[in-house]
């Protein structure tokens, strides 16, 4: 598929009532936004500061509208196409799919979402940091969940995309598009083979996982305690941070209101506080350890894959200059 056809495809999606969301360049920054025209999309492969997280796991969502004791679930979801989802963000979606497997709100949203991944081959070579050693191979796609994937060959600087499908929905959409637009349907189907590679769990992850508990005896966490100001920025940009709180918001009308689910941050000191004031995560050191523990031990224990996709966004936003790859390095070597 070339650029022109891709633009046509995007237009066609919009005509089919999909809200199209993807990376676009604004003031030199790549942002993920709703686009009105396909020409706004940026396929340079530069990493957007924010991920696609909020389109699947919104920062605030209404679970119920209540009137007195009558709690009505609000499961409405609109049709959206997420386009240009990087491999990093696709890996995060893999995690949400597991965490929210039994969540009717998430599932309603997912059912109405078309996920279109995109990556250069190899992806993000220009990044200055690395968390996981991950080469782009076509077999990466086997372990990701998406509907359509646009593969871009970097060397050729060509505007040709190699198209893959990862779901029936993706195949159906492309076939429909081909029928209605005259595009000569040309795509390869990749059968999803589960989140974990054949070789088993990521050995690098296993190493960090093993070293985490012992790291408590080192000065790593005390050192971070001195630097981190608990602003919570890293948890906001991190595509895999999903923790939340449930709160009620009364409306002005008597006896009416909304029960909401909102993003929370484990860096905030009330996160573990119970009535009476006792906190189970007592200080910054314990909270930052818990954040790493969730990503590198708890999620691996639950799902057998890492809770960090290695995008480096947390390092980019941290006002204290905390770099995740440096922290991991010190965990591994101490």
């Amino acid at each position, binding site marked *: 598929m070339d650029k022109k056809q891709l633009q046509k495809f995007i237009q066609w999606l919009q005509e089919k009532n999909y809200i199209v969301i993807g990376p676009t360049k604004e003031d030199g920054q790549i942002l993920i936004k709703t686009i009105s025209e396909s020409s706004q999309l940026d396929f340079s492969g530069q990493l957007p500061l924010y991920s696609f997280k909020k389109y699947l796991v919104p920062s605030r969502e209404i679970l119920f509208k*209540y009137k007195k004791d009558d709690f009505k679930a609000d499961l409405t979801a609109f049709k959206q196409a997420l386009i240009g989802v990087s491999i990093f963000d696709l890996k995060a979606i893999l995690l949400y799919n597991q965490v929210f497997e039994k969540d*009717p709100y998430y599932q309603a949203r997912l059912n109405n979402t078309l996920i279109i991944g995109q990556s250069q081959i190899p992806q993000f070579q220009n990044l200055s940091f690395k968390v996981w050693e991950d080469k782009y191979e076509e077999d990466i796609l086997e372990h990701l969940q998406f509907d359509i994937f646009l593969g871009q060959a970097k060397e050729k600087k060509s505007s040709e995309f190699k198209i893959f499908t990862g779901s029936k929905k993706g195949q159906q959409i492309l076939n429909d598009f081909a029928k209605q637009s005259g595009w000569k349907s040309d795509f390869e189907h990749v059968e999803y083979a589960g989140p974990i590679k054949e070789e088993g769990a990521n050995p690098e992850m296993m190493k960090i996982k093993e070293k985490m508990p012992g790291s408590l005896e080192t000065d790593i966490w005390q050192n971070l305690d001195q630097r981190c100001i608990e602003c919570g920025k890293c948890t906001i940009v991190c595509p895999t941070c999903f923790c939340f709180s449930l709160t009620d918001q009364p409306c002005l009308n008597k006896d009416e209101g909304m*029960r909401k689910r909102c993003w929370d941050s484990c860096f905030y000191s009330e996160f*573990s506080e119970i009535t009476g004031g006792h906190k189970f995560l007592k200080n910054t050191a314990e909270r930052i350890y818990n954040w790493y523990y969730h990503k590198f*031990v*708890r999620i691996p224990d639950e799902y057998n894959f890492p809770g960090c996709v290695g995008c480096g966004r947390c390092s980019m936003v941290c006002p204290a200059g905390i770099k995740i790859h440096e922290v991991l390095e010190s965990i591994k070597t101490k």
Partner: protein
Amino acid sequence: MKNSYQPKIAVIKKIKIQTPEVKLFTLQFKNKEDQKNFEFIPGQFIEVGLPSFSEAPFAVCSNPNDSDKNFQICVRIAGQLTKKIHQLKINDQLTVRGPFGNGFPNNLTGNILLIGGGLGLVPLRPLILANQNNRNFKMQIFYGACEAKDLLFQNEYKIWQKSANLALTLDKQCPNWKGNVGLITTLFDKIKVDSSAIAILCGPPVMYKFVIQKLKQAGLDDANIFLSLERRMHCGIGVCQHCSVGSKYACKHGPIFSYQELKNIPGAL
């Protein structure tokens, strides 16, 4: 798909003042089907809420075998929600989700030692009530409160004592109090604990370390010491992360854990 966040409506059937700060509420689901289907294991909890005041976890504290299937919670005034619940009257309504969590082990036999501190007696009560006629059960209860007026379920002690040995202690000497005075650990100096016993602890976080020490001295196995963990909870189903304990969740894998499971998890106790 089942919506685990969907609350059900329960009606307040009875209110009993326990202490100046604690009330015992007897609840019944508004919907007959809900009432019929409600089953719980001692040690499990429910999320109880009020519209505009959100929810909080409460241990179900009635007898799980009660034939009318009504159920009880004990509420102490501690914040906005509980203050509001205390103002409610008979026939007022609450929202309920659950039950959640694992509950106490279900195959308990032999010498059972229940240790409750303060409000920690509340989750233990269903275990006491459900095993009153259990011949495989030799029950010893240690219960400590701050002052005499804080002792919960006082009018039930006589009945409990028919099937259990109840030892009480108060932190402070109170007028007319002839029983033990001192922290709950002082009961271990008066009553011998069998090394083969199974201990179940429920109380404020500060209590655990000292009580476990005593139990270890008495020769109990780590796998035979069970604790109920209190944590901040929102979802109740192991997703929101507020109640994490190492790689486990108090709401889902707990709130009851054995000491063996917890002893190597930093910050668990």
